[in-house]
């Protein structure tokens, strides 16, 4: 065995040792690294951007129009308690109380592509909270009824008569709202009673399809 061959052998052996040491250090590093809780859902920056945007709000006029034109793409979710829901609710709404919004059964209502999910409560505060929770998980197609049922009552069921000095547009809006109120079961102005609001809308059959999880397919 020549001298250079021996020398080379030593170098190669040392190289293997270094490589083995690198492997052990790297894999040991994985064990020793401090573990942290990974957050599920969207990034805080995206969340804040979504939060600031008023796009989530749907007006009562838009909702009334959708209900009257039997828009199949909307899914109303009442986030108030079950008792309030049974007392009065919008037509074809589903009741998911705010406290139950994270239950796995309800996930299919929120995490889907088929419907525009519209949250509502008495005002928009509880609905906004439900929206925040759902948005945090990265669910799309979720909206909030601006002003909630109070706004619904004040604008659609019992709209305020415009002043005589108001524009023609205001009167048109008022007439539309009155017509909508009639659709939702309120005849004349003074027969207003929230329990009498029984709209002539056929119950909607809700078919939920869960959003497909994004994963890599295939393999070799």
């Amino acid at each position, binding site marked *: 065995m020549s001298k250079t061959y021996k020398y080379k052998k030593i170098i190669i052996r040392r190289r293997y040792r270094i490589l083995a040491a690198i*492997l052990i250090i790297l894999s040991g590093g*994985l*064990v020793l690294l401090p573990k942290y809780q990974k957050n599920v859902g969207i990034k805080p920056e995206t969340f804040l951007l979504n939060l600031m945007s008023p796009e989530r709000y749907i007006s009562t006029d838009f909702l009334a129009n959708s209900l009257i034109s039997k828009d199949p793409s909307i899914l109303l979710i009442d986030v108030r308690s079950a008792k309030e829901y049974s007392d009065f609710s919008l037509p074809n709404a589903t009741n998911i109380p705010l406290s139950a919004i994270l239950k796995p059964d309800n996930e299919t209502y929120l995490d889907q592509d088929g419907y525009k999910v519209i949250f509502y409560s008495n005002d928009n505060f509880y609905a906004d909270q439900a929206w925040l929770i759902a948005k945090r998980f990265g669910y799309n197609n979720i909206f909030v009824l601006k002003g909630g049922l109070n706004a619904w009552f004040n604008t659609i069921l019992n709209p305020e008569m415009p002043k005589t000095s108001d524009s023609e547009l205001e009167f048109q809006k008022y007439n539309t709202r009155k017509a909508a109120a009639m659709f939702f079961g309120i005849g004349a102005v003074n027969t207003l009673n929230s329990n009498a609001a029984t709209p002539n809308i056929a119950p909607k059959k809700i078919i939920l399809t869960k959003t497909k999880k994004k*994963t*890599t397919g*295939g393999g070799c």
Partner: protein
Amino acid sequence: MGPLIPNGIIPPEWDFVIALLIGIIFGYVLEASGFSSSRKLAGVFYGYDFVVLKVFFTAAVVAVIGIYYLDYLGFIDISKLYIHPTYLWAAIVGGIVMGLGFILGGFCPGTSLCAVAIGKIDAMAYGVGILIGVFIFSEFFSFIQPLFDGSNYGAITLVDTLGISPYWFIFLFSLVAIIAFVISDLVRKKVKKIFY
């Protein structure tokens, strides 16, 4: 951020282009490291050359350490990676068939194509054998199907089955790899040298 394709950073239309590029690089590396020689490949069974074992073990260890570091740093979401589902008995039978073919023919499917590319006649015969095998498999598929579809355990991993922390598993796996390298080297020194 990652994986890049499911998160839409690279559109899925690029799949074939990326696959082609990776394939070319993979083929080049296989050929350059002598994997188109059936003597080198068969050496792992006879104990005079453990390059196959070393390469695959190293690839697995480097990849798993890299992926877990990327996951730790938030560049890749491991839960979104594809895990091939386990069909237990199909895998066992397939492994035996594959192993037999490997030792008889001296190639695995990928390296045989590599060897075809540099014009080895035995590899061409091997390639024809693969096609015959595919034909037989397709013709008898209805007989094989219960085995093919049966005993599906879903996309499980060793970490799920053993219930240990993936980090500890990787550490132990690296140790096992290094021990395997050392032992294989000792075996190689004991076995009579074959020149090829």
